[in-house]
Structures are given as C-alpha cells and as structure tokens.
C-alpha cells in the first residue's frame, strides 16, 4: 500500500465529514466573535457541540396536530446537507468520483429540497409561528431564486459549463479572470444571497427570540429533542456549505488539494475552516454595522442582489465581458 495517497473515495468521505464536523465549530466562532464585537464575552467556541449533545439526549415532544411529516422533515433536510458536499469543491481542485453526479443546478435543487422539507415540517406542526416562519421562508426563498439563477447563468457564460469545479479553475487561472465585471458582480450577488439564506442581519436577526421578525428561525420553533438537534446541525451545515461555495468557487479557491497526498488534504481542511471562519467574521461585522430591514423592505435588498446578478450576465453580451 502506498502510504502517500488518500483514495478519491476517502477524500469524498472527508469532504462530507469536514462539513459535518466543522460546521458547528464555524458557527461557534462566529457567535463568539459576535459577542466580542458587542462587548460581551460571547459563548464558548465549542458551545454548538454541547448544545447538539444536549438536544440529542432530550425527548421529542410532538404536537397533537402533526403527522409523520413533522418528524421526517428534519431527517430529510439533514441527509440533503450530507449529499451537497459531494458535489462542490470542498477539499480538492479536481472532481472526485461522485463529484459529477450533479452540476451546480443539481446542488441548488438538493438545497431547495432541504429548505422545502424543513418548511413542510414547520407547517405540519400546526403552530402559528412555525407556519408563519415557513410561509415567509418560502416567499423570500422564491424571491432569492431569480438571483441564484442569474448567478448560475454568469457561471455558465464564464466557463461554458455549469460545474463548480470549472468555475473555481477559471478563477484560479489568472488575475484578469478575477477582476472581470461578470465575475466580480456574480460573486457579490452570491455574497448577498448567502447573507439572506443564512438568516443574517439585513434580512433576519440571527439570534433573535422575537417571533414576529423570524423567517428561517421561525420554522423550527415547534421541534424538540433530536429533531431540533438535526435542524440546528443542518442549518450550521447549510451555512458552511454556502460559505464553501462562495469561497471555493467564487472568491478564494486557493489552498485546495491538487493531489491525494495526506499533507495536501490536511492543509485543505485547515484552510477551508480558516477561510470559513474569516468569512464568518465578516458576516459578524456586518451583523454589528447594520440594522435589520423591515419585513417589506427585504424585497429591496433582494432586488439589489438581483440587479447585480443581472448586470453580471449583461456584460457578457458585449465583447469579452
């Protein structure tokens, strides 16, 4: 056995494991930094792990109105979040065996399925706030969708493919690719999409307890025990997945393993977590600099993201974009 190469299947498993194990850590660091920025000491960095362990030990309480959908939703969403890391460049610059089973649209569909099943489970609870949250999450999700589509169009025009690996390779290839307006504006639009999709401040108060302002958080109000743990873990994974796409596909696809050597893979894991934490600090800073938009002003924020994505596509229709 050659000791110097990790099998591609092994790296694929590691991609999923990195997202699975690393996501609560990234959430913990963000919460800690946020606390520090607000003059608090902030929770421990490992707090999300303790929360998850506690929730897994608790019993599940189910409302009278709900059916099996209420219990299955979190499980379906969690398994979706386990599939997406196989499709995107988490650790390697080259496609892994299952990496081409879905393109960037396939990944988008699986993320949408996860969001849909959580919203369905929230609606199924029969509780007003969870239903309000689910309904809002689907409404704003539908408004974010066109922006995501136009970002994908921009990727397709930049690379002539719709594979995230090809986009990352294009960004790495030269400086001129980085400063192309098509790339810059697609990346900024996707940044705004991540901001909205992870429930960050201009759209939603991440750690708020006021039900009236809740969108994503509202959906999980009625869940408890292991189901809630899966939902919380799932939303942390979704956050890290979106960060990974933003970092490793659009903004900074450096530090990825170019071969299967163990050292390169370890460096790739460390650099991904490091970059995700840095990005998380930027999000924490935005959280502290801006105030939450009123619910009916969120459409204007999403319209700005849409404008950027549309302009990113338009510039390709003139020579060289």
């Amino acid at each position, binding site marked *: 056995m050659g000791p110097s190469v990790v099998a591609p299947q092994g790296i694929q498993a590691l991609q999923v494991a990195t997202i699975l194990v690393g996501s609560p850590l990234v959430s913990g660091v963000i919460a800690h930094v946020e606390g520090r920025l607000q003059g608090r000491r902030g929770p421990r960095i490992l707090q999300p792990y303790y929360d998850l362990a506690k929730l897994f030990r608790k019993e599940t309480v189910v409302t009278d109105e709900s059916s099996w959908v209420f219990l299955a939703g979190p499980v379906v969403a969690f398994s979706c979040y386990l599939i997406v890391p196989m499709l995107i460049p988490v650790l390697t610059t080259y496609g892994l065996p299952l990496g081409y089973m879905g393109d960037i649209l396939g990944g988008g569909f699986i993320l949408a399925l996860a969001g849909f099943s959580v919203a369905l489970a929230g609606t199924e609870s029969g509780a007003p706030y969870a239903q309000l949250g689910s309904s809002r999450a689907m409404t704003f999700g539908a408004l974010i969708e066109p922006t995501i589509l136009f970002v994908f169009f921009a990727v397709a025009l930049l690379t002539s493919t719709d594979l995230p690996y090809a986009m990352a390779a294009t960004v790495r290839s030269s400086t*001129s690719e980085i*400063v192309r307006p098509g790339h*810059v504006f697609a990346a900024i639009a996707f940044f705004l999409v991540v901001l909205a999709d992870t429930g960050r401040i201009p759209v939603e108060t991440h750690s708020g307890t006021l039900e009236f302002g809740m969108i994503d958080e509202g959906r999980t109000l009625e869940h408890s025990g292991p189901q809630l743990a899966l939902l919380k873990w799932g939303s942390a994974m979704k956050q890290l997945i979106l960060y990974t796409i933003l970092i490793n596909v659009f903004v900074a696809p450096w530090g990825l393993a170019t071969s299967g050597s163990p050292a390169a893979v370890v460096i790739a894991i460390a650099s991904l977590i490091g970059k995700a934490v840095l990005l998380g600090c930027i999000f924490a800073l935005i959280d502290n600099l801006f105030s939450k938009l009123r619910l009916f002003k969120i459409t204007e924020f999403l319209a700005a993201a849409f404008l950027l994505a549309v302009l990113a596509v338009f510039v390709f229709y*003139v*020579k060289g974009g």
Partner: protein
Amino acid sequence: MHLVPSAYAGFADVVAMLVLLTEFAMLRAPLLRSQVRIYAFQSLVVTGLAVDIAAARHVPDLYTLAALTFALKVVLVPGVVLRLLRDAEADLAGSPVLGVASMVLIAIAVSAFGFFAVGSFHVQSATLPTTALAIAIAAALVAFVLIILRTDVVSQAMGFFSLENSVSVASLVVAAGLPLVVEVAFLFDLLVAVVVFGVIMRVHHGRTKTLSTDELDRLKG
C-alpha cells in the same frame, strides 16, 4: 469562448460598472440629500477612473482632468446643491409616479437595451474597451429614466449631472487622448447647468413652496 479582457480593462470595467450601480442607487434614494451624496460618490469614482487611465496609458493631461473633476463634481457641485436644499428645507422626494421596484425593473430593461445595442455594433478593436462603453451608455440611459420618472427638481438636476458623468466615462474609455480643452469645455457646460438648475430650484421653490414638479400641472393665467 469569450475573449478574456486584460486585468487593467477588467478593472476599468468594474469601475465603470460602479458608475452604473450608483445610477441605480440614485433611482431608489428616498432622501434628496442622500441622492446628492451618491452623485458626489459617483463623481469620485469617475475621478478614480481618470487617474487609473492616466497611469495605465501615460496620458498626463488626464491628471489635470481628474483634479478638475474632483474639485468641481465631488466638492463644488454637491456642495452648492446641498446648500440650496438646506435653504429649501425639503427632505423627501415627492412620491414618484411608480414604486421603487417597478422603477428598478424599467431601468434594468433600459440598461439591457444599452448593452445589447452596443453588443450588436460588433466593434472588433483590440484597444477599444467595448464593455466599458456599453456600461457608460447603459448608465446614460438609466440617468434618463431617473429624469423622467422622478418628479422633483433635485432628482432631475442630479439625473442631468450624472448623465454628464456617464458621458465622461464614455469619453475616458473610448478617447483617453481627447484634447484637454474639449474635456474642460464639457466641465464648463456642467457649470452652466448647475447655475441654471440652481436658479430653477430657487424660483420653483419660491413659487410653489415645494421642490416637486407635481405642482406644475395647472395653467396660470
């Protein structure tokens, strides 16, 4: 496969794109004051573009132009308009004909027309940055949308001034070696426009006690 522009051209395109984006920001700015500040920022971006092109193409004249642009469009014009606004004591723009979302959608459609129109010229030149030209033309068209759809004197003045900004972007990227005297003549036009719009703002506010042009729909005998 598309031709990949050089890093310098790409950077210039992004800066030109910023001009277009500030145009959209002006379209939705509810406060008249913030609209003037956005115009000042847009002019600052144009100044930056002039410096960038001066350095990249070794046209020392453009440094003079950049300095003049900064003094006039970033400091003097916004200063004068803000002062007029302070005297008029009007904060909010009157309710526009259309909602913000519809205005932005119309502006997107209009700027798309600009992009596709320049794209269909099929300009095949190694030195002419077609993208930046297209962006400048799109910005000019959005400035027209701003002038047409917003119903207050300040927005219309700002639309006109920013129209001049997008024309300077176009002239900077297409004809960087344009004689300085021509560029200065453009700036002088702007000064005349500022005086004219200043007088209009004063007279309009003096007669109707508002900056909105909605009041101008009655015949006076």
